[in-house]
């Protein structure tokens, strides 16, 4: 399953979709919007994609991963648009006969996805903090 969606992601059916009796291991990764980074608070992230290329690159990643590991089923789902803290931005799920190859494939997929798939994120500006400033500051 390859999908780029503006809709809220429910990870459970995505993970269920890669389960098969041939698998001994299902490994999944969820990327979520982190609210606190050091002393910075994130009120939301805006994700933007180049949809045609992003879908193509996701499909290429799946094919490359299948050539490296004995993947039975794979799912790569990325959200776009405005996300609130805690929401899921990306899901990677793979099933393999054994856990080591499932861990390796899942790790490689999310790491490589973040390097090559044309999807960008940007902090949503905290308009309220400007409005709340006292006059003259």
């Amino acid at each position, binding site marked *: 399953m390859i999908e780029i969606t503006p809709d809220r992601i429910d990870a459970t059916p995505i993970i269920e979709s890669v389960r098969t009796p041939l698998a001994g291991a299902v490994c999944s990764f969820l990327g979520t919007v982190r609210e606190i980074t050091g002393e910075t608070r994130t009120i939301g992230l805006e*994700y*933007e994609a*180049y949809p*045609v*290329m992003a879908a*193509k*690159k996701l499909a290429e990643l799946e094919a490359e991963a299948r050539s490296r590991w004995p993947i039975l089923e794979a799912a790569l789902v990325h959200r776009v648009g405005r996300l609130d803290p805690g929401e899921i931005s990306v899901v990677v799920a793979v099933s393999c006969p054994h856990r080591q190859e499932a861990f390796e494939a899942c790790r490689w997929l999310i790491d490589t996805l*973040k*390097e*090559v*798939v*044309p*999807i*960008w*994120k*940007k*902090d949503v500006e905290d308009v309220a903090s400007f409005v709340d400033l006292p006059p003259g500051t």
Partner: protein
Amino acid sequence: MKATILLFASARETVGAPSLTVELDENSTVGGLRSALARACPALIPLLPFLRIAIDSEYARNDQQIIPHDAELAVIPPVSGGSSLEIPAPP
């Protein structure tokens, strides 16, 4: 020939439009496209070292020729890999 380049993320924000049309030589390479982008929008110059160019959804090398003429061209700023749209400092 005229070529329209799709812009995303920091490149789109810098130009203030989702695409840019530039004039290219008939046998222009990706490097030539970069020069044309710099001429069309000098504000892009600081970003250029960090931008990748895609031809028909494939990352292109600088010496690659822009063929065919109806190819979909796009400017690809650094993707989200843990960073934001902020422009990285030059190395």
